[in-house]
């Protein structure tokens, strides 16, 4: 499945509107930097399998995230790079071989209208993106015109390219309801490896493995829910909430995956292993700053500023 996404729709969560937006913000941001865009320009998020895109006009694009074995007019392209596309070309993707989500950014950005302040697609409310639906055959994406397209290959420094693994270690900040779990329950959560189940999508990743014990029960008086929240329902196995998650929920939340690590989970597929490690606020903020520095580094060696606007 492919949808148009940007950094998400903030400001309406008090009205029950999920934030949506890209699942892997690192690959998304890098794709925009490599394409010479503003960092939050709308991109195509492709999951598990990519599409075929025909370009009647010349363009400049960047591809980051899962390797979907992209080809330009039959020739292999470099993942984590920006490159020029001549008029009358075909950019084609296949199945993801490492990771599961790839981001295709177009220099200039995708010129779909904003819906409630964002171009992100939220399928359940048929909102944003291309008339609220996932991309399908024959759809036409309009790309904002750019004065002067770049033409040079723009590769991301190897040190900034993440290595996707099938054994993830995610940092979490414990809470908000860790006090509703037994000591054993907490120990189980922080020591056992969980497997990503086949039930994983833009709303949530359901994990399989050792059950986590609540003190009395899994239900709470519903409160707010955000991407990264690790809910433990009555079954005792974790559900990690993702971009399209509901804004409120009624299961106890043992911990929250920190932002920079949630992007890594977005690349995990069924069968991959996940374990959780507790971290402090200071460590989480340091990780945020490190993430920001990676973007600065990529931007400093990237294309000189392009006159791009949507």
């Amino acid at each position, binding site marked *: 499945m492919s949808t148009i996404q940007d950094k998400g729709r*903030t*400001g*309406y*969560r*008090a*009205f*029950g*509107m*999920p934030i949506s937006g890209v699942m892997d913000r690192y690959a998304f941001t890098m794709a925009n930097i490599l394409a010479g865009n503003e960092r939050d320009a709308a991109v195509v998020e492709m999951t598990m399998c990519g599409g075929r895109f025909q370009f009647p006009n010349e363009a400049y694009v960047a591809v980051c995230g899962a390797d979907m074995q992209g080809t330009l007019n039959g020739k292999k392209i470099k993942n984590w790079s920006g490159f020029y596309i001549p008029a009358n070309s075909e950019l084609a993707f296949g199945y993801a071989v490492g990771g599961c989500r790839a981001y295709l950014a177009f220099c200039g950005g995708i010129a779909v209208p904003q*819906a*409630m302040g964002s171009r992100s697609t939220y399928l*359940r*409310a048929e*909102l944003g993106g291309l008339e609220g639906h996932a991309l399908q055959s024959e759809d036409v994406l309009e790309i904002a015109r750019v004065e002067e397209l770049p033409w040079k290959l723009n590769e991301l420094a190897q040190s900034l390219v993440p290595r996707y693994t099938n054994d993830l270690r995610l940092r979490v*900040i*414990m*809470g*908000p*309801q860790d006090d509703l779990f037994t000591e054993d329950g907490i120990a189980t959560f922080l020591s056992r490896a969980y497997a990503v189940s086949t039930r994983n999508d833009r709303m949530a990743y359901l994990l399989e493995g050792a059950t986590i014990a609540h003190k009395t029960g899994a239900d*709470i*008086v*519903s*409160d*707010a829910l*955000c991407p*990264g*929240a690790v809910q433990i329902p009555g079954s005792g196995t974790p559900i990690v909430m993702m971009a399209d998650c*509901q*804004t*409120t*929920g009624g299961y106890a*939340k043992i911990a*929250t*995956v*920190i*932002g920079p690590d949630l992007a890594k989970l977005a690349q995990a597929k069924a069968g991959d292993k996940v374990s959780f490690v507790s971290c402090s*606020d200071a460590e*989480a*903020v340091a*990780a*945020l*700053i490190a993430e*920001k520095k990676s973007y600065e580094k990529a931007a400093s060696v990237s294309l000189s500023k392009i006159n791009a606007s949507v």
Partner: protein
Amino acid sequence: MQKIRMLKVGEQGLVVEFGTEIDPAVNAQVHRLAKILTDEMPEQIVEVVPTYRSLMVYFDPLLISRESLQDDIARYLAGLETAAAASDTTRIITIPVSYGGEFGPDLEFVAQHNSLTEDEVVAIHTSTPYLVYMIGFTPGFPYLGGMSERIATPRLKTPRVKIPAGAVGIAGKQTGIYPIESPGGWQLIGRTPLTVFDPSAKSPFLFAAGDYLQFAAIKAEEYGALKEQVVSGNYAPVVRNVARTGA
């Protein structure tokens, strides 16, 4: 007031928990704090989400540390009961509903289940305004409080695949409106011609958490005309500003 707790939600979230019960007085505190933080800290706070008995505060940890934010919130909390309560107002929004018939296929069952007539169910359902404790589940879906237990009815055994936007229903002791077409197991007693959620409007949502909804019965014949007014943009919802009760 109960002991207020501040809980961590990742590196950019903080929950201010006022209690563990569903209670209008507790909820009023949530909405007061929401307003203060939205007004006073627009830079550092990304957005707030009021729920039954706690306020989620999303903040930018690169602009303010959790410790400073907690200090600021503690200061606002200290003045919350006195200053804010005096000037605290809320809105009562009238929701016209055509009850029964094709719009409320389960009204008959709700009446039978509670040994009432259909008219009695409608009279009870429209007898008092309901507090919007919070909004969640789907965009615009209100969690309402205050419905009489005399019309409480269990959910359908088999949920419907498609419930139209505007459907008004009962599930257990709860009542609510479906803002967008979705599946669901609520007993449908009527439908409002109002648009609860319109993403293209300047204010996309008809009501906010903390408002009250007053259902008002209309005749089935009136539904079409009202709907036309709503669709053509010529309908102004009936809104009354009142002092917040339950504080």
